[in-house]
């Protein structure tokens, strides 16, 4: 999946909260659950630390998909962080959708520290979606002078 | 105030008194009950199946034909069916779409009608304290029990008529008319009318329980808002018996318009 005939492989940034999702990713690793190497994880203390700037920056620098993972609602280590993140990301992704950016390039998923399998499954799904969408041209091109 | 009024088929026939006295009392209280120009049977029973659209259509028609903001009902059964159908209309998009497709109305029903029972009108719009002031013949000394039955109270979330387990609206009504309300535990249980034709014995059991409970508590007469309860409490009484009246008759009596 991750090595294509054209040589293009998607670049995918995954922001994972330290307490649940990053631990979930570690668990996927200790369970030797495979997912594509295109996914690179950035550790943040909480999903509420993810600034829209980071996401746009990633797209600007050539990312093809960005996924944010946090604790399940109600389980946030900081009690309310993921609730804020949920609203923020809903708004940001809705706006990107409104600007005509493919919906499949952004995603939010709640992954607990116990859900290694869910983490791997989510990443496999997400990579596949981004793969079918192909290279992210729109976000880079939206202002391209005609 | 003008209210649309849905009498229902039974009030045009076997339960004429319920209707008659209601109109007389309403007039005495300055309430205008404007009968819907067109109405059919309410559907008689609220359907047991959520996919049963047809049984609720005539209730929807009545709601569509309502001109005023509030649709007043008198019969517990009609009230039950209309209020629940109206509730479904607001809550259940599938029902709304399918019923609209069936009826093809010129103007779609917007769900804005409020279905109110005449008792609710007395409580919420007139107020029992005000009602008390209008009483001409106080029913002093009479010990009257209210039989609520099931249709007015349940399901309580939809009907939101009164506390389903400890209702007081009819007791307050009786008190306003000058009589002594007698509360008894079985006033909110079922009279059994729906099985009266299938199995009279079942119906008799329910009636006996209710009457026994009422008599034990000291009731000397009963009032009801339901033609089914009326029929059953009278016709299927076995051991205990009590005179039963529609609440409107009692009201007309107290307002001095019974003979009019």
């Amino acid at each position, binding site marked *: 999946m991750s090595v294509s005939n054209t040589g293009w492989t998607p670049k995918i940034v995954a922001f994972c909260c330290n307490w649940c999702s990053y631990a979930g990713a570690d668990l996927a690793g200790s369970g030797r659950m495979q997912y594509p190497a295109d996914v690179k994880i950035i550790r943040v203390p909480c999903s509420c630390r993810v600034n829209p700037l980071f996401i746009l920056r990633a797209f600007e620098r050539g990312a093809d998909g960005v996924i944010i993972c946090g604790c399940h609602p109600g389980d946030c280590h900081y009690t309310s962080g993921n609730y804020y993140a949920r609203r923020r990301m809903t708004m940001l992704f809705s706006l990107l959708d409104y600007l005509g950016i493919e919906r499949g390039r952004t995603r939010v998923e709640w992954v607990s520290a116990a859900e290694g399998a869910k983490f791997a499954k989510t990443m496999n799904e997400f990579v596949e979606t981004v793969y079918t969408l192909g290279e992210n041209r729109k976000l880079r091109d939206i202002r391209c002078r005609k | 105030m003008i209210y649309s009024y849905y009498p229902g088929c039974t009030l045009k026939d076997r*339960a004429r008194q319920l209707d008659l006295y209601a109109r007389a009392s309403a007039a005495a209280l300055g309430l205008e009950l404007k009968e819907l120009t067109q109405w059919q049977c309410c559907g008689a029973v609220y359907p047991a199946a959520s996919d049963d659209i047809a049984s609720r259509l005539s209730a929807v028609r009545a709601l569509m034909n309502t001109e005023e903001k509030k649709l007043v009902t008198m019969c517990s059964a009609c009230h039950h069916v209309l209020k629940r159908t109206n509730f479904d209309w607001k809550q259940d998009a599938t029902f709304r779409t399918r019923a609209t497709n069936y009826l093809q109305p010129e103007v779609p029903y917007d769900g804005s009608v409020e279905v109110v029972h005449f008792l609710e009108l007395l409580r919420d719009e007139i107020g029992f304290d005000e009602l008390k002031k209008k009483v001409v013949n106080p029913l002093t000394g009479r010990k009257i029990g209210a039989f609520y039955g099931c249709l007015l109270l*349940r399901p309580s979330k939809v009907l939101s008529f009164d506390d389903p387990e400890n209702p007081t609206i009819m007791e307050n009504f009786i008190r306003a008319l000058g009589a002594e309300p007698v509360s008894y535990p079985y006033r909110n249980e079922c009279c059994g009318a729906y099985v009266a034709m299938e199995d009279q014995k*079942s119906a008799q059991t329910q009636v006996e329980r209710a009457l026994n409970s009422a008599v034990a508590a000291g009731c000397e007469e009963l009032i009801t808002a339901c033609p089914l309860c009326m*029929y059953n409490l009278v016709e299927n009484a076995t051991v205990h018996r009590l005179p039963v009246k529609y609440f409107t008759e009692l009201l007309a009596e107290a307002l001095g318009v019974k003979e009019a």
Partner: protein
Amino acid sequence: MDQNTRFLTETVLRISGVDPRKCMKCGKCSGTCPNYDAMEYHPHQFVSMVENGLIEQLMNSNAVYLCLGCMACVERCPRHVAPGKLVGALAQLKLRKQDGNHKGGNDIAAMADEKVPQQLLMAAMRKYRK
């Protein structure tokens, strides 16, 4: 569970909107049912039997017609299960079957005396025949 039973079970659950798995088997419904003694199967049994696919057994019982429809079990159920809705749905399902009518129009008219209110006759028409 065979195909037919599965279909019936799913239909009953769909049209009644009841989720029998919410039941904690406390027996409140049967404790509150006013017509308990007349019914062959009791409210709590309806919930458990539908969950176990014993639909035909329930449909062939007099119990579906002896439910008073008073909703006491619906109102008082602590688990929001509403057994009474199951009974009603089963009666409906029975009507929808071929030859499912419990009583014909003439039978109903014959049962009624002159004092029976119209509402009750209409209710019987609705409940006993298609």
